[in-house]
């Protein structure tokens, strides 16, 4: 990606926060880590982040209150909640307060990466942006894909898969992570079936037939990788 994304990670579990930062930094995202509500409040004034990843359960306050504070101060960052609590009320409250997305722990880092990319893109380009990967151009708004300026017709799932791959380019994506990205709650059904394999096979075929390089590689025993 041409620009560097700056994000703030508000998560009191240092081990988890480190993993997130490490993973995202490899995707050209610059991460700042804070571990408490108070330091988060200071940080949001110091710098204009593209996205803030917020844990709901902080030792000295609630992530929900932090979101309310950010909204009150009219700070224009995208907000993603990560919560250990799976309850629907938390999710609804979070999204109603103004968060852009909600992820339940544990999540795949590749999933968080894809979600961050999506919300930042939406905000930064007001929906008129494109994701580019060499000869592939993806328009998330119109859900269209161009290869060497030529339109490729993909199914809904193939499109989602491609966006997910490109967001996590050059990373190994496990079958579990891919299944979660495409089917969330029904991921287990996908893992036990040939569905992921079928979708990937079809996407790969369409891309190659349209003149793209064969970017999708199966990594033996682990999953798939999109990259050169």
């Amino acid at each position: 990606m041409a620009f560097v994304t700056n994000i703030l990670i508000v998560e009191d579990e240092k081990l988890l926060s480190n993993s997130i930062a490490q993973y995202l930094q490899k995707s050209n995202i610059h991460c700042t880590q804070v571990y408490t509500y108070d330091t988060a409040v200071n940080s949001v004034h110091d710098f204009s982040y593209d996205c803030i990843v917020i844990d709901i359960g902080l030792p000295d306050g609630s992530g929900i209150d932090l979101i309310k504070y950010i909204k009150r101060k009219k700070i224009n960052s995208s907000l993603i909640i990560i919560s250990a609590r799976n309850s629907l009320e938390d999710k609804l409250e979070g999204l109603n307060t103004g968060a852009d997305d909600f992820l339940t722990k544990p999540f795949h880092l590749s999933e968080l990466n894809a979600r961050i990319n999506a919300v930042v893109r939406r905000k930064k380009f007001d929906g008129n942006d494109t994701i580019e990967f060499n000869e592939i151009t993806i328009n998330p708004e119109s859900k269209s894909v161009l290869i060497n300026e030529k339109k490729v017709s993909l199914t809904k799932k193939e499109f989602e898969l491609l966006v997910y791959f490109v967001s996590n380019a050059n990373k190994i994506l496990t079958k579990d992570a891919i299944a979660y990205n495409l089917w969330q709650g029904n991921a287990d059904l996908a893992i036990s079936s040939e569905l992921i394999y079928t979708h990937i096979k079809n996407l790969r075929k369409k891309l190659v037939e349209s003149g793209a390089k064969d970017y999708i590689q199966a990594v033996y025993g682990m999953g798939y990788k999109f990259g050169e």
Partner: protein
Amino acid sequence: MKLLHKNIAVNTLASILIIVSSGFITYSFVKNHFEKEAKEHLLNEKESIEFALDDGVSPKLLENNIGDKIWIEEIPRLSGKKPYFKIIAQSENEEEEEEQEEEGTMNAPAIVFEYRLADKFYKITLIKLFDEDEKLVKDIVYAISISSLLMVLILVVVNIFIYKKLWGPFYKALQALKEFNVSKQHPIHLPAIDTKEFDDLNRSLTTMTEKSVHDYIALKEFTENASHEIQTPLAIISSKIEMCLQDKGLNAEQAKLLMEANHAVNTLFTLNKALVLLTKLENNQFEQSSQVNVADKIISRINLFEDFIQGKEIDVNYKIDESVHLSMDPNIAKVLFDNLIKNAVKHNVQNGKINIEVTKERIKIANTGKPPKDNSDKRFERFYKAGSEDSLGLGLAIVKKICEINRLKIDYNYNEGWHSFTIVFSSQ
């Protein structure tokens, strides 16, 4: 039978028994006493008759002059019998009977003795005429009967009173216990009572319900905390594994180990989620209910499974009454249909079928599949695994629990290649 009715029945039976036996005893005592008196009276009369006869009073005159009835019969000679008492039997002749009644000689005690006056022999029967004594006995019998009836009546009234007044606190406690719902978190508190046993009962109820509410809250907090506290380390493990997998120096053997660990972490996460949901269901933490349109819910859930339905080329048939509504928590309805549809898709065969039928009486979701390997009831138990290794065996346990708390009945049956789950609406 109510306690009151039992009490009245036992009391009435016992008092009738006591009254009848005491009445009988009183009657025989009184009767005995009067008989004795009658005998004494007759003996006295006998003496005075003998005295009068000795004095030369003619027997004919005696018959008219004495208060009692006297029959004098001339006999040829003395039989030598000693004087004896008898009861004048009731005559079988109706006319005589009437006469007897008029005279008062019916069933009357009598003494029979023989007497010799000069050279004549007489058999004299002296009868004590029906009098006040006999009436008294009758009156006593009446009195006893009436007072017995009154006694039974009063007993019933007293029982009802005792029931209402004395047992009142007991029924209050019973009602409170019936209405007690641990998820509402209101322990039973009843006013102090001067009956020791009931006061003890109320105190015990308060202690017991306070304890269960306390335990309920503790359990609720525990499940929430456990879910939260387990998920954070799981998230850390999962993220660390993902980081490891990105390492270019990883060899195939190491990658395999990491993937297996990763899979176990994911299983643990799903397990945690399902168990937390089951616990929440068991604790009745989903109290809000609204009218859920079954058709809408099922169609929207089916759409989520489109990929998998197409993947197995399953043919889905609907026969849905769109007006059917269920009164339950909408999110729980979602979980219910999700699990049932997921089950029907997961255990289906390539080119299989799913039939969904919704009527005013029931919801039936049937799918084609391999014959079940064992007992049909077991599949609703926790951790029952029907062949597939990937499943946790909690989906149908959740379905069953949801049906239970919403007073729905769910049945499973297998018939000629079809597995069907039927939810029957009980009359709500």
